[in-house]
């Protein structure tokens, strides 16, 4: 997303997907933008206020643009293990893992969450802009296995509630035992009488839940949570605050930190890649080489100590030498200072290193810091 300020392009609704919640967003006064081929709310009350609501209370997100790909069959586990970098066979039923799907050269096609719904049934959640590609790629890679893919992206509404008060808001509404539902776990049950998959996952650095329901039940799910959360101070949250929340939490965004030209080791996600799992998988040979050779670039956190805010695409220098580029940057609402993630040459990536970000032709000091920028108290 670029400048949505004065004179910025308004979203053209006619060529975009819309979620079942579009009218709800409009009624809440949301500003809508194009994101990943979808018309989505970028903000309601304002990014800082929404950000604070999630850190301190609870926020409600419409994430129906995400892709939900169900993989089923006797070979579903083996087939997925051959298609992605993790080993979904190692998941117990009702558990989830962060994963990635790479090209044969090890470049990241998308980052994913894989949920095990049953012994032979998985749900793969992909980013909106990549969902069609991931769906097509998985279909190709499932060929020859006893496994079929059912792309339910346009049949599923995804509503997330995130923030420290999420549990108390959701608990009275659902048949799922939330106290037994651990982080990165998923269970089936009802939410406000609506059949749902309830997952304890998210993209904000806070405790929270993602609720997968039938497409047409999105608005009723949203309304029930909004009503139940009134006293706790729940607020609707747009993609703007979603981005500042995930950035503070040090979580990568596809298209910024992750892309086809980046492998998981460079992204600092080497631990996700299971090179020792049984059987071959797409990208294995290239990823083994990448691990042996060591990364060409390293993803780091930066705190800008000079004047200005580092943004996506700004060059990063070590002295007079160009060392890399900013992938994401903003003014951190929680820390009250400018933060960024950047790729730099590995030798320039040690915490404490002072680098320069080129902000409108000015060199501005930035210090390499460990990620994440923000970690919630437990």
């Amino acid at each position, binding site marked *: 997303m670029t400048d*949505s300020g004065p004179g910025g392009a308004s979203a053209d609704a006619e060529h975009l997907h819309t979620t079942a919640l579009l009218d709800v967003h409009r009624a809440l006064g949301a500003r809508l933008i194009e994101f990943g081929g979808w018309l989505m709310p970028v903000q309601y009350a304002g990014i800082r206020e929404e950000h604070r609501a999630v850190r301190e209370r609870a926020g409600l997100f419409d994430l129906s643009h995400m892709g939900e790909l169900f993989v089923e069959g006797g070979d579903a586990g083996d087939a997925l293990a051959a298609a992605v970098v993790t080993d979904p066979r190692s998941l117990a039923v009702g558990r989830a893992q962060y994963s990635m799907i790479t090209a044969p050269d090890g470049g990241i096609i998308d980052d994913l969450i894989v949920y095990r719904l049953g012994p032979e049934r998985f749900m793969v959640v992909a980013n909106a802009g990549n969902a069609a590609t991931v769906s097509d790629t998985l279909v190709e890679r499932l060929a020859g296995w006893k496994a079929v893919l059912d792309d339910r992206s346009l049949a599923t509404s995804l509503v997330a509630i995130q923030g420290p008060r999420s549990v108390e808001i959701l608990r009275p509404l659902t048949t799922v035992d939330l106290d037994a539902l651990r982080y990165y776990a998923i269970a089936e049950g009802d939410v406000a009488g609506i059949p749902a998959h309830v997952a304890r996952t998210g993209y904000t650095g806070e405790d929270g839940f993602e609720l997968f329901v039938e497409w047409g039940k999105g608005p009723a799910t949203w309304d029930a949570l909004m009503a139940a959360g009134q006293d706790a101070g729940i607020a609707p949250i747009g993609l703007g605050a979603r981005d500042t929340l995930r950035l503070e939490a040090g979580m990568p965004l596809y298209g910024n930190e992750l892309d086809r030209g980046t492998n998981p080791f460079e992204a600092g996600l080497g631990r996700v890649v299971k090179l020792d799992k049984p059987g071959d998988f797409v990208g294995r040979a290239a990823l083994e080489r990448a691990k042996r050779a060591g990364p060409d670039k390293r993803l780091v956190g930066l705190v800008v100590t000079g004047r200005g805010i580092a943004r996506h695409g700004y060059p990063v220098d070590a002295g007079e030498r160009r060392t890399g580029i900013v992938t994401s940057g*903003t003014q951190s609402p929680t820390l009250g200072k400018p933060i960024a993630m950047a790729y730099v040459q590995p030798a320039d990536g040690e915490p404490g290193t002072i680098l320069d970000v080129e902000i409108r032709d000015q060199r501005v000091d930035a210090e390499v810091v460990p990620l994440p920028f923000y970690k919630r108290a437990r």
Partner: protein
Amino acid sequence: MVPSDLRYTTDHEWVRVDGDTATVGITEFAAGQLGDVVFVDLPSAGTKLDQFGTFGVVESVKAVSDLYAPLSGEVAEANADLGTKPELVNSDPYGAGWMIRIRLGDAAQVASLLEPDAYEKLTAGG
């Protein structure tokens, strides 16, 4: 709706002309579109400005926008308060959120700026 004693640009700056100086800021509409302003980069006193040339940058959490000089002249003063309180641009865009004062180079340029009703029309439905 917009203050009737100001002139405006199509880039959403406002101008208060007072003799041979003009005070400049961005309109409430612009501030609302930007969202929470977190950083304002302004020129120092003495900087020469050309009409409709960029004179600075305003950043919200999400967006970066250039600021355009409504009139030619020389910067007489920049609002130092915005260095520590950029949120004044949102809370008081026509008052404490002002950005620069320009010593005018050509007072005749004022005639090229929008009247309040014309600016109002520009932002209607926006």
